[in-house]
């Protein structure tokens, strides 16, 4: 293994090292604050490592991993997300739950899995990364399990996630096996050549394999009709873990799926386009319609994430007709927008909650504007960004979808997107309106207690995420330039 490869893998190596350090520290000294701080330091080291040493890009680092601008973009997002989750977890668990140290080990391992996913262009690393991520998630979701009065139902959520996620992993694995049986390769890049050489373009076994992989991925991304687990897990998990599922695990899964679709030239099979279009249409409609009926903010965000992934699929489908680089650019922008926005949204919920009491009912937010203007303002920006209103990054994301959708002539999906956005406005505004109402008799003592003791870290997280959402919404040019250059690698 050459030095270049070691250099490129530095981020992954640092994350692994960090995990070990955190584990050993937790074994010797049970100190929540210390372990939390060590996690933050390890993650920051992994985040900043490429500022100090220049990686050689792009490079196939070992047969399993591809380190390029694309993978680094996603790993940066993922590690930022992990930093935020770590910051949120401290006040959430501290004083409300015993023995919190192992949580950070799981968090580090999950992050490692996500980073591996983002860099994988081989089915083995795909599966390894996915399982590292999922298995740590099972435990993270169930983390407050021994707490008598846990705010939510961690066990139910965890078992649900375990069973369904295990099922989807099995489906992916079987699909990979079928693909391998027909094409004889596990590397994404080698698939098109194998398809051409062995004339697999109408091979039923190969197509069934593709479909099984797609179904498994759709499970992980919670696309309709594979979405049933999403609201329950979102609601049942502790808020910081919900943030982790909603952002990190989705972004990592999207990163590898897009790479697979493009590298394997999956769109030469027309079935892929048809199935993805159906998934997109169903997700946009069902996600939005069901979100309207929820009264729980976490569930609203769960259904809204289903709808947003439907929007995102519209972009992926355009890769069938447009140059890959344009679709990749649009998709990465939208993911970045959605990632930052949801992270900020869950940060607000987490700031209001702790392991003993979660404020996630819409009535808990009544009058928040007047009780705690700062948190309410952040939440409003988040909701407007999710709704795609100008001044926020969500708008530029939606603009991207429109622009590639028009170029790809996807009129039907675009009209569903407009309808979906209209319905979406309703439930986002409902929450905004609840926050604007007079608090009067609805004043919740817990909420005010939570506000008094917010640590500076959370304020920092909220402020920087909000600033990013607004900055990238008003002046997206720098991010667009970055994404354009990384997308040109495709």
């Amino acid at each position, binding site marked *: 293994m050459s030095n270049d490869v070691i250099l490129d893998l530095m981020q992954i190596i640092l994350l692994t090292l960090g995990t070990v350090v955190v584990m050993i520290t937790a074994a010797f000294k049970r100190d929540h604050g210390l372990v939390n701080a060590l996690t933050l330091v390890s993650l920051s080291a992994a985040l900043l490592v490429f500022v100090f040493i220049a990686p050689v890009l792009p490079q196939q680092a070992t047969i399993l991993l591809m380190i390029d601008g694309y993978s680094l973009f996603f790993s940066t997002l993922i590690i930022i997300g992990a930093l935020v989750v770590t910051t949120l977890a401290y006040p959430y668990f501290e004083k409300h739950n015993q023995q919190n140290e192992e949580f950070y080990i799981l968090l580090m391992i999950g992050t490692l899995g996500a980073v591996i996913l983002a860099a994988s262009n081989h089915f083995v690393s795909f599966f390894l990364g996915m399982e590292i991520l999922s298995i740590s998630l099972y435990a993270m979701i169930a983390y407050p399990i021994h707490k008598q009065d846990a705010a939510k139902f961690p066990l139910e959520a965890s078992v649900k996630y375990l069973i369904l996620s295990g099922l989807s992993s099995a489906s992916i694995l079987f699909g990979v096996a079928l693909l391998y049986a027909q094409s004889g390769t596990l590397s994404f890049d080698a698939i098109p050549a194998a398809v051409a050489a062995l004339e697999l373009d109408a091979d039923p076994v190969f197509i069934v394999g593709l479909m099984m992989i797609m179904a498994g991925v759709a499970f992980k991304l919670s696309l309709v009709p594979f979405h049933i687990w999403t609201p329950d897990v979102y609601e049942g998990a502790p808020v910081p873990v919900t943030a982790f599922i909603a952002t990190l695990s989705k972004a990592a899964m999207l990163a590898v799926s897009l790479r697979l679709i493009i590298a394997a030239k999956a769109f030469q099979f027309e079935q892929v386009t048809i199935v993805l279009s159906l998934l997109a249409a169903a997700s946009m409609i069902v996600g939005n319609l069901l979100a309207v009926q929820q009264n729980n903010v976490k569930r609203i965000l769960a259904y809204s994430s289903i709808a947003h992934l439907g929007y995102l699929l519209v972009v992926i489908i355009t890769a069938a007709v447009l140059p890959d680089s344009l679709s990749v650019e649009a998709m990465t922008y939208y993911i970045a927008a959605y990632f930052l926005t949801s992270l900020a949204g869950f940060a607000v919920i987490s700031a209001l909650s702790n392991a003993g009491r979660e404020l996630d009912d819409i009535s808990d937010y009544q009058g928040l504007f*007047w009780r705690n203007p700062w948190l309410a303002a952040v939440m409003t920006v988040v909701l*407007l960004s999710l*709704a795609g*209103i*100008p*001044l926020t990054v969500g*708008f530029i994301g939606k*603009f991207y979808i*429109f*622009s590639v*959708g*028009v*170029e790809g002539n996807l009129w039907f999906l*675009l009209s569903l997107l*407009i309808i979906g*956005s*209209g319905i979406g*406005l*309703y439930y986002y*505004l*409902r929450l*905004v*309106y609840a926050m*604007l109402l007079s608090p009067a008799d609805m004043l919740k003592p817990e909420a005010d207690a939570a506000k008094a003791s917010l640590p500076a870290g959370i304020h920092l997280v909220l402020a920087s995420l909000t600033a990013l959402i607004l900055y990238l919404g008003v*002046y*997206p*040019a720098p991010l*667009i*330039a970055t994404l*354009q250059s990384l997308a040109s690698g495709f």
Partner: protein
Amino acid sequence: MILVWLMIILFVGGLGAWLAEGLGRGIPRVIALATILLDLLLVILMLAAPDLLGIGALSQASLGQQGDWLVLFSADWIPRFGISFIFGADGLSLLLIALTVFLGLIAIGSAWHEITERPGFFYFNLLWTLAGVIGVFTALDLFLFFFFWEVMLIPMYFIIAIWGHENKAYAAMKFFIFTQVSGLLMLLAIMVLVWFHYQASGFLSFSYFELLGTELPAGAAMWVMLGFFIAFATKLPAVPFHSWLPDAHSQAPTAGSVILAGVLLKTGAYGLIRFTVPLFPEVSMQFAPVAMTLGAVSILYTAKVAFAQNDLKRLIAYTSVSHMGFVLLGVYAWNAQAVQGAVMTMLAHGLSAAALFMLAGGIQHRIHTRDMDKMGGLWAVVPKMSFMALFFTVAAVGMPSLGNFVGEFLVLLGSFQVSITITAFAALGLIVAAVYSLIVIQKVFHGENRNTHEMADLSTIEMLCFSLMMIGLIWMGLYPQSMLDMAAPTLQSLNVAFP
């Protein structure tokens, strides 16, 4: 740059008013007043002494635009998509900016005593709405235009949702969803237009000047035009897209109604004149009979509905739709008289509707009802207010020598040359208008004061506001040429047929 300053002053003033709330409840309104006066001063200077600001008529052929633009500003924004900041104002924009800032002043006057809860945030929203509207009237990049189109929406939503009346949640939500969804259709249409332009020219641009004259395939052109038309017709509003308006107007606080009726509706009309017809001249002319019919239907149908209302604000709201029907009619007749008439109607209706909403708001503030059946005989109680009500009602009906008459007369004169049938029906609107207006005067101010309402007459601030609007309407009625002359070069450059 001066246009950008107009907006920056409002943005900064808004933030200042919000932050100053902590210093005292009376401070925000003073800051808001100072801000709007500063803007007004700039606008007056722009109109009266452009040389002083160094913005005399420039013909900047280098940018490739047509016509004379009084003020232009341009800078790159998102070069990836050919999006840039292009702000420009010609006669039409300047007239509407002047109306916006003037009504902003009136709105602050009407809120002066009415808004006591969270005044800082209120004035913040008010000033930001105005800034968004000025952005709409000056943006000459389609992306930028859409940006401001949506930006003016959010603060208005807050104004309705926080300071509105009993049914504010529903009204605010409806207002937002109608505008936003129709806005997304427009965004889609913009993207398609830009894409066809890209196909033809090889470079991406959202600039209005670049996109003018883009050739679209016949089938697509109609759809794209409809995208724009629906967005603007929703804002205008025209039947059948009007149903958000009565709710929004009746639930909004007085200052909100003033801005909605006086200014926000005009953005729809402005969009039709500036974008829809010039960008798609051929299909617009094919579509004109439909649009003119919609205009006539709006005039008659909503006048009839207005007649059936008991809620004073709802009634005035429906009359707004009815008057904006004249604007739609005039724009799609697309000849000199008709479009000039449409512009005059926009300006005059801005003042008269704002005044009427302010009166209705004033009554509601005093006796806590908008139900006309519970009013009556107010003339004896509040003579000054009653006089003002009579004046502005008569103005809205179209009394000669006042602004609305000039506008509606010109519209009918112009559209008569295009379609006699539609014009004949539209003209009936003038009669129905007289009927519903007299009902208001009769029910509210005449008759017997059954509930023996005691209320204070107009305060000095209110008298000042009404007098200013009165002077404006009389000026428009007696010397409309001063405004027509300003708008004429714009209309000529948009290829309106001038005799």
